[in-house]
């Protein structure tokens, strides 16, 4: 019998080793971020990680400020990649937004970069997305017109197709992909709610894809036309706690 549901976030992250490459899903919004997987990864303590994430995370302080600007209550459990930056767990980050959007706020990874404590590879969001999709799809490399003539093209092969210059980009396969979805079944089939962001993109682009979900439903409840990501791409599923925790150190 297939059952991909694991009992705890700590169990789901128990085999992450230092130096691993990790895809972090979501897009600059704690509501589509795998908050509890990130907290469990922080508890796990693995470091010198290579992260792949379109943004570098808000961290607790900046996130509170962003929520207050919109007259919203900050989330108690809105942990994101900023936590990994604050804890110094990132050896390298491949990202399109190494900084925050705000000129006034300093985001956690900006501190890391200023202290020279991590490497960064800055790449356009579409090229990151496609490199990840290639890992899922078994394509080692593709050509894109994006980045030609800019710092992104440095050291990359340039080749013309139909008279237009393109650069060669390669697949980004990770050891783990941490993603967030709405509903799952025991096969690991996923249904998302809202923009599916890098969560859907990263599913299947790592040796182990772990989905943090609001709910696991009985097999058959998710219909074949409705499933966004087949369970084939998902190795582990963990359900978020019904009552939010407020300290990332609390086992969950």
């Amino acid at each position, binding site marked *: 019998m297939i059952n991909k549901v694991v009992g705890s976030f700590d169990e789901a992250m128990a085999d992450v080793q230092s130096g691993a490459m990790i895809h972090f899903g979501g897009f600059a*919004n704690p509501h589509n971020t795998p908050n509890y997987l990130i907290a469990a990864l922080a508890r796990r303590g693995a470091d010198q990680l290579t992260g792949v994430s379109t943004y570098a995370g808000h961290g607790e302080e900046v996130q509170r400020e962003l929520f207050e600007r919109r007259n919203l209550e900050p989330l108690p459990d809105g942990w994101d990649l900023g936590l990994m930056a604050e804890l110094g767990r990132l050896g390298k980050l491949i990202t399109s937004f*190494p900084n925050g959007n705000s000129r006034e706020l300093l985001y956690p990874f900006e501190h890391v970069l200023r202290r020279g404590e991590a490497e960064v590879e800055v790449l356009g969001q*579409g090229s990151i997305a496609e490199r990840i*999709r290639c890992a899922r799809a078994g394509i080692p490399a593709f050509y894109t017109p994006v980045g030609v003539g*800019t710092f992104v093209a440095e050291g990359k092969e340039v080749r013309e197709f139909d008279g237009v210059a393109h650069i060669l980009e390669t697949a980004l396969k990770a050891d783990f992909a941490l993603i967030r979805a709405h509903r799952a079944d025991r096969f690991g089939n996923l249904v998302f709610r*809202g*923009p599916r962001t890098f969560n859907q993109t990263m599913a299947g682009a790592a040796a182990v894809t772990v989905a943090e979900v609001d709910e696991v439903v009985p097999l058959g409840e998710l219909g074949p036309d409705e499933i966004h990501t087949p369970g084939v791409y998902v190795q582990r599923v963990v359900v978020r706690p019904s009552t939010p925790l407020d300290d990332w150190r609390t086992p969950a």
Partner: protein
Amino acid sequence: MSEQPELLDESVMAMVAARDLPDGAIVNLGLGLPLALSDYIPPDREVLFHSEQGIVGFGARVFDPAEMDPLLMNAGGEPVASAPGMSYMSHDESFAMIRGGHIDVTVLGALQVDAQGNLANAQIPGKPAPGLGGGQDLATCAKQVLVVMRHVAPNGDPKIVERCDMVLTALGCVDRVVTDVGLFEIADGRVTLLEYAPGWTVDQIQAITGAELAVAEDVREIVLI
């Protein structure tokens, strides 16, 4: 030199940019000033706003917390309204859509734009690394690139220049620029003033511009309709 006339405020800049979006256009809104455009679509038109995290067809920004959907935000993380016919997708499909040339207009902020249409908006002064977001894909692949930005940088430097000296995002891509003093077209290595903000003269605009301006034959004061 006479005292400087009033600058357009951000909502008026957004209205000018929104004014020219054709009915049925697929339009991506980038970070910063462009995000306001979805608030200003004339009611006789249907414009489908695309956002990089996987949305086509969202509506105006939402400012009342009671009406916010925490999952539905524009690219800058501002809550927006849903609209009939909206659809969600993944980041890879969203950028397949961008790279594949399916976006009619991309509206981007900029630090510098030059007479060759080069765009620099990656290296914000004071930030430790350049940031690209989705801007590089959009600037390279959208059918039309519209920049909405202040005419002059906070330090007083002109932002429309002969040749960008900041980190480039994409080459030869910018078609039009809306600033707080006017509307400009960039084509064939030349920046042309199409419309000016109320009270501004060509000379006054040229004085704060780092590239030589051509002036459209039918140059006129900005109107919002």
